[in-house]
């Protein structure tokens, strides 16, 4: 079997930056977007030359708002990917889309280009909550987008939701979950809002926990998510991800299980041949790189070759995010040592505190372990 390489393609543009967002993205003129896409296409061609032995099982167009780009630009990117990489038969190809930026014309073009999964950023079914987040759309506008996506024939759709929002209550969250569940998407991501430094939300809410649901409420929301979605046929396969059987996001599972991936576009991260690095994060500088002539050092930065110790740490703290947990036999196969020899003390301590449970060969988080996963996962740093 050939080695697998997932592709992440970053589109750093959006119509308007949301107030909570600290991702590398922002509004830009159409001309700048076009210049970026040209550069990206060149990067894809140049980079592919380094990885002839790999086959690509998944492509993820993330952002930003990739759906903001015109149909033509997305098609150019996809054509380039298909012509220079060996895209596996039946590969998962996802695009992130936001309500208000998705036309039937774009959907048809995407489908044609091989995109087969759409991830829609909704966040909430409550218009006041949407406004508080600085989103540009209403719930109705989302519904129109969703129907359009289905009409265009997309059979694999994710909807992104967020809990613990300012002004959100347990009952409004339950209602969001039910409304969205009834639409029968294949996948739902439900994250708790994190207040990140450098965002308008940070200025507004940092140091003001009284303006946000408290942690008991937040945990209630989390438990409700699992319950409601479970009742509607979604199972939780990762701390914050739910899917119908067989519809788990393969691309993300790759991140959590140590699959190699190549980031393309501004600031994107890569993990290949045991090395982590990321792309140039300054848009101006990125666009000035001469992809063919310049050394890769202008594009790729922060190289970090993982030691076996670090690979073990990542295996544990990433793998445990998944509900099935980490497998002791997989650990042995990868590292040639027994997981219990390396982590025996930690595993025993965490088990005594009911934070993890063993189900040989797997070890997984308990519900309490999920609540304080940050604490539990940090124990696996050697």
């Amino acid at each position: 079997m050939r080695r697998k390489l997932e592709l992440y393609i970053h589109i750093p543009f959006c119509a308007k930056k949301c107030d909570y967002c600290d991702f590398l993205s922002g509004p830009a003129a159409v001309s700048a977007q076009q210049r970026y896409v040209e550069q990206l296409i060149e990067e894809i061609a140049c980079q592919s030359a380094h990885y002839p032995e790999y086959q690509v099982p998944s492509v993820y167009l993330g952002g930003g708002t990739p759906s903001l780009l015109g149909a033509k630009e997305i098609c150019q990117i996809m054509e380039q990917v298909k012509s220079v990489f060996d895209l596996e038969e039946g590969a998962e190809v996802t695009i992130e889309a936001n309500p208000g930026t998705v036309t039937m014309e774009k959907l048809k073009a995407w489908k044609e280009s091989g995109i087969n999964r759409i991830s829609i950023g909704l966040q909430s079914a409550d218009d006041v909550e949407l406004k508080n987040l600085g989103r540009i759309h209403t719930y109705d506008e989302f519904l129109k987008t969703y129907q359009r996506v289905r009409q265009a024939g997309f059979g694999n759709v994710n909807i992104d939701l967020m809990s613990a929002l300012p002004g959100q209550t347990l009952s409004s969250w339950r209602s969001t979950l039910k409304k969205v569940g009834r639409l029968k998407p294949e996948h739902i991501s439900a994250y708790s809002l994190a207040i990140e430094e450098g965002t308008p939300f940070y200025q507004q809410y940092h140091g003001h926990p009284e303006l946000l649901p408290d942690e008991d409420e937040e945990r209630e929301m989390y438990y409700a998510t699992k319950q409601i979605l479970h009742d509607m046929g979604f199972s939780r396969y990762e701390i914050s991800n739910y899917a119908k059987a067989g519809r788990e996001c393969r691309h993300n599972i790759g991140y959590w299980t140590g699959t190699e991936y190549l980031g393309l576009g501004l600031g994107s991260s890569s993990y290949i041949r045991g090395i982590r690095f990321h792309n140039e994060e300054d848009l101006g500088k990125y666009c000035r790189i001469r992809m063919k002539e310049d050394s890769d050092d202008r594009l790729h930065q922060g190289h970090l070759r993982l030691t076996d110790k670090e690979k073990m740490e990542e295996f544990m703290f990433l793998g445990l995010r998944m509900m099935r947990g980490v497998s002791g036999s997989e650990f042995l196969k990868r590292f040639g040592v027994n997981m219990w020899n390396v982590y025996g003390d930690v595993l025993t301590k965490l088990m005594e505190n009911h934070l993890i449970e063993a189900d040989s060969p797997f070890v997984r988080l308990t519900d309490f372990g999920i609540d304080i996963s940050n604490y539990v996962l940090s124990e696996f740093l050697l």
Partner: protein
Amino acid sequence: MPSVDQNKIRNFCIIAHIDHGKSTLADRIIEMTGLLTSREMQSQVLDNMDLERERGITIKAQTVRIIYKARDGEEYIFNLIDTPGHVDFNYEVSRSLAACDGAILVVDAAQGIEAQTLANVYLALDHDLDVFPVINKIDLPSAEPDRVAAEIEDVIGLEAHDAPRISAKAGINIEEVLESVVKKIPAPQGDPNAPLKALIFDSLYDSYKGVIVFCRIKEGTVRKGTVIQMMATGAQEEVVEVGYFGPGQFIPCEELSAGMVGYITASIKNVKDTAVGDTITDKNNPCDQPLPGYKKVTSMVYCGLYPADGAKYNDLRDALEKLQLNDASLFFEPETSVALGFGFRCGFLGLLHLEIIEERLEREYNLDLVTTAPGVVYRIHKKNGEMMELTNPSNLPDPAEIEYMEEPIVSAEIMVTTEFVGAIMTLCQERRGVYLGMEYIETTRALLKYELPLNEIIYDFFDALKSRSRGYASFDYEIKGYERSELVKLDILINKEEIDALSFIVHGSSAYERGRKMCEKLKEEIPRHLFEIPIQAAVGGKIIARETVKAMRKDVLAKCYGGDITRKKKLLEKQKEGKKRMRQVGSVEIPQKAFMSVLKLDEG
């Protein structure tokens, strides 16, 4: 060197309130007399230690000999003895003054007389020094030299109408100061042929020469080969070398005779044998009376010092030993704490001295320290008639055995503008001060006199004073003695376990308040655990305050962006790093800085 004409010697010091420009003036004087070019001078030559330079205070006495060619055409020898500038080192200051014949009083032309100005002037006058004032910082826009001159005459009674008006910083009128030294400071007296009588005013340890004793020869002569004897400590040695102080170096000479200031080395191995204030005499031709004023220096403030990393215990001991070579007033002995492991109980002259030692240990010896709350020395009178001095609260005997306790009291003088008198009086009252009286210095400023318990001022009194007077109050104190007091030991229990390193002695009336604040502070400092942690304050087994650290409920990592695993790992590492700075006590992990939290009980 031929014997020196006493009439051409001037031994003097500079006294001032902190920040009024003492060290800057010293620099200018050295520069003017041509010993160093200004480029050679790393600003403020006399303050040798980095710490002194950074904090702008003088910790150790420094001395320099300079030659000045006066307007009368004669060359004079100036011995400038720079004195420590902080109340912690009051005794050292008094010994340095005793080595002088006169003093320059520096007063800031904008701020005028401050508490330390007065304290220092009185101290100088007590030692029969001739004091003349100079008015500094005349180049400041807010300078009012006329007003300040009048203030000096009214308040201190020193003639000031002809006081040199200078700017040490800008180098204005420095020569006038030097001329005044010649004219206004008397030449030393003393008979070079009388039995040797020399005052030790400082000493330092040198790994080649042993202890170098700084002294002022009052009577007689000392030279290489003289067998000297310290009259208080009894130590005897043969003199190896005598000499005087060049800037930054020791210059050997033939002999030191009455009136001169210089150094003696005699293969002395321990600074403890050369106590500041002791009298040196000639063993074979001793003087009959030592010089007056010798006191054995005692530590006023104690705290526990522990290495953050238990394995560094020996390093800490070595470092303390090295510091002690140069600092006889630093005391330490091993102690053990249940919470902190092996460490040392250390005694200091005051809180500044403590901070300096702590900083030097951390900087110069690269040690990470955990410090327990500083406390004073209490006297415990037991029912069986015994008296013990308590330096560590954990050693307090069973209350049933105690007849009564005493605590040290200081006499304090606080100078403040009249608008803040009320606020400062309230502060002193809160700190159990006894009002002694108030004098108006001018219509707008008053000098408040209080007696205060030392344990009320060692923590944050100075900060509180500054904040309640918008920075205008100045403060000076001296130890008065011990007084009986209703004291209790306040214990802190974390998860029902008494933490010995957090116990402290407090007056009964403030136990509840302090206990409550301690619990609140610790609640902030102690991270949440998997279980609930009660934090309690107790006096004599009775709980007087309680807070609870709730059990960990939620700690979830945010979404990872693309494949940005590095960022996620950094978050986890931060969490893990936090755990390393903890002390495990029972099942609870306590951050090291929590042990110092008692110091930061804000007054609010």
